[in-house]
């Protein structure tokens, strides 16, 4: 069954004024919001710029503000988006330079992510179900058997939602931001190298580090992947303060 959906989308093209445009599109009744955006593109305007790739919350490209709040439209149903309202409102993320329409420039985000050196894959950990991932015997390159733990991609999909939700990021770019600091925290957890660890801690303690966070917790609230960046920031602070106290005690 198909339904008619009304939406108001933010439009902007370099050299002209930003504006809102209203659309009516037809989508299946079980569609998600990304399907609505795509329908605007295919049914009304092929010049609409929006980001999307995987449609299952893994690529992290499609993040927008839906009815004001940061969401991944690929995992929000039309029904949810229209709960208690006549039309949905779709805007680009905050705190990023605007390229056009719903597309923002995410270069600064990836640079901050790269600062931690955290790679995208993580060693296996207990899954969400509490079932442990078990060690398996897998094939080595030469075809012989090789003992190796399972691995998987990090939970953070680098969608930029936390940056958009963070009030501190609204006025300053000199801050690693929630995802950047969560990545530093993950990188510290992953490494056994003492020097690497203290280097990462110094990074977190630096002028772009954890002390620029003022406890709004919007990142954790908005994160679609339960990364909980705020907790990572506070864990880093606790460790930094504990280290300082220890140093003081030792004189």
């Amino acid at each position: 069954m198909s339904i008619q959906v009304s939406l108001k989308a933010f439009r902007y093209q370099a050299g002209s004024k930003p504006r809102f445009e209203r659309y009516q599109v037809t989508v299946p009744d079980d569609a998600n919001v990304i399907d609505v955006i795509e329908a605007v593109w295919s049914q009304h305007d092929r010049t609409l710029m929006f980001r999307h790739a995987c449609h299952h919350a893994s690529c992290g490209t499609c993040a927008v503000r839906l009815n004001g709040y940061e969401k991944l439209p690929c995992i929000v149903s039309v029904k949810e988006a229209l709960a208690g309202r006549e039309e949905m409102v779709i805007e680009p993320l905050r705190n990023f330079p605007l390229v056009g329409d719903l597309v923002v420039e995410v270069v600064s985000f990836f640079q901050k992510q790269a600062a931690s050196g955290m790679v995208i894959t993580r060693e296996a950990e207990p899954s969400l179900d509490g079932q442990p991932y078990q060690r398996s015997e897998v094939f080595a390159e030469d075809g012989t058997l090789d003992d190796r733990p399972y691995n998987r991609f990090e939970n953070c999909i680098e969608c930029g939602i936390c940056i958009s939700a963070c009030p501190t990021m609204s006025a300053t770019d000199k801050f690693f931001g929630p995802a950047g600091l969560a990545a530093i925290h993950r990188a510290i957890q992953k490494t056994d190298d003492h020097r690497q660890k203290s280097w990462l801690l110094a990074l977190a303690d630096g002028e772009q580090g954890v002390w620029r966070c003022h406890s709004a917790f919007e990142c954790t609230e908005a994160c679609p992947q339960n990364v909980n960046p705020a907790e990572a920031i506070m864990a880093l602070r606790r460790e930094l303060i504990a280290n300082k106290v220890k140093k003081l005690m030792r004189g």
Partner: protein
Amino acid sequence: MSAPHVIVIGAGSTGAATAHDLALRGLRVTVLERGEIANCTTGRNHCLLHSGGRYCVKDQESAIECIDENMILRRIMPDALELNDGLFVALTEEDLAFKEKFIAGCEKCHIPYREIPVKRALELEPFLNPKILAAVQVPDGVFEPFRFCLAFLATARKNGAVVRTYTEVTELARSGQSITGVKIRDHRTGKMEVIGADMVVNATGPWAEKIAAMGGVDVPVSPTAGVMVTVNKRLNNMVVNRLDKPSDGDIVVPQRMTSIIGTTSWIILDPDQIEIPKDHIERMIQKGREMLPAIQYAVTRGVGAAARPLIRKANADEREVSRTFECFDHKHDGVEGFVTISGGKTTTARGMAEKVTDVVCAKLGHQAECHTRTTPLLSYRLFYN
């Protein structure tokens, strides 16, 4: 004299890998993509790094391509893969009968395999249907399609390639019987431009026919859609495949915190207009549950469908069509300066790039060898710098 300029249309896996190979061989490269990188066919694929197991019985050419490229990708992008292998599981007596053929196929296509006892398989995969009759392990893997493309493009850019997203090709510029460049619309500014090129590579997957038509030629590519249903729990460590010939809902790919069930297959007319049939979603969940019954307790997180490019062969059912790729030099259609690469899979993107780049270099008289088999790619993050 500066190196010849090659335009690559499309920034899916084929376009990205092609840009990398061309740039590595010293050509000047411009990639044009009308939307986001990997926004359709590649982005919404199954994220499966094929071992070739799926094709080793019916489509051995594809199977060999897959296992070769699988082993290469492990070397050149090791940080961007979940390498947990795959299981082919038999649920019925029929499946069990297929096992012999499967193992013979693996041998033939030199795919490493190992039959593991059912008890062991259930230990490795606690959510697997306890009624399975057999399990064979093969080196399947999982990638992240968007970042897969970024890694190729990041490396291409380091080697001088220019990547322009939100830039749509509206026409091919021609002079006599030669394509001399493209006319584009830059959606960022709304401005039209003409970009000249010594060669234009059409790497638009299921849109290959549309772009080829701009050059007045035809390529036999059928857009074929497939549905993926993603559930909100990761129910398997390894890729779980049905030990049978390819069919609907024969695979559950784990990725990050989720499991992705796929897929169906139907031919569509316009890759820009895909309507997902509701019964396909239900069928995915139902078929997935046969292998992993716990799927019934998981919540659907996202449903996606995208068109895949299948090379048309006369009188073949779409499931029977080879998943291999083909490179079309349009000089055979009387048009110079224009090449199409289509078909294939993301797993074989590097191989496709090698083939089309060989063709391009030969046509341009540019002497350079392919080094993409052994050149490690940059981190995908470095695409943004």
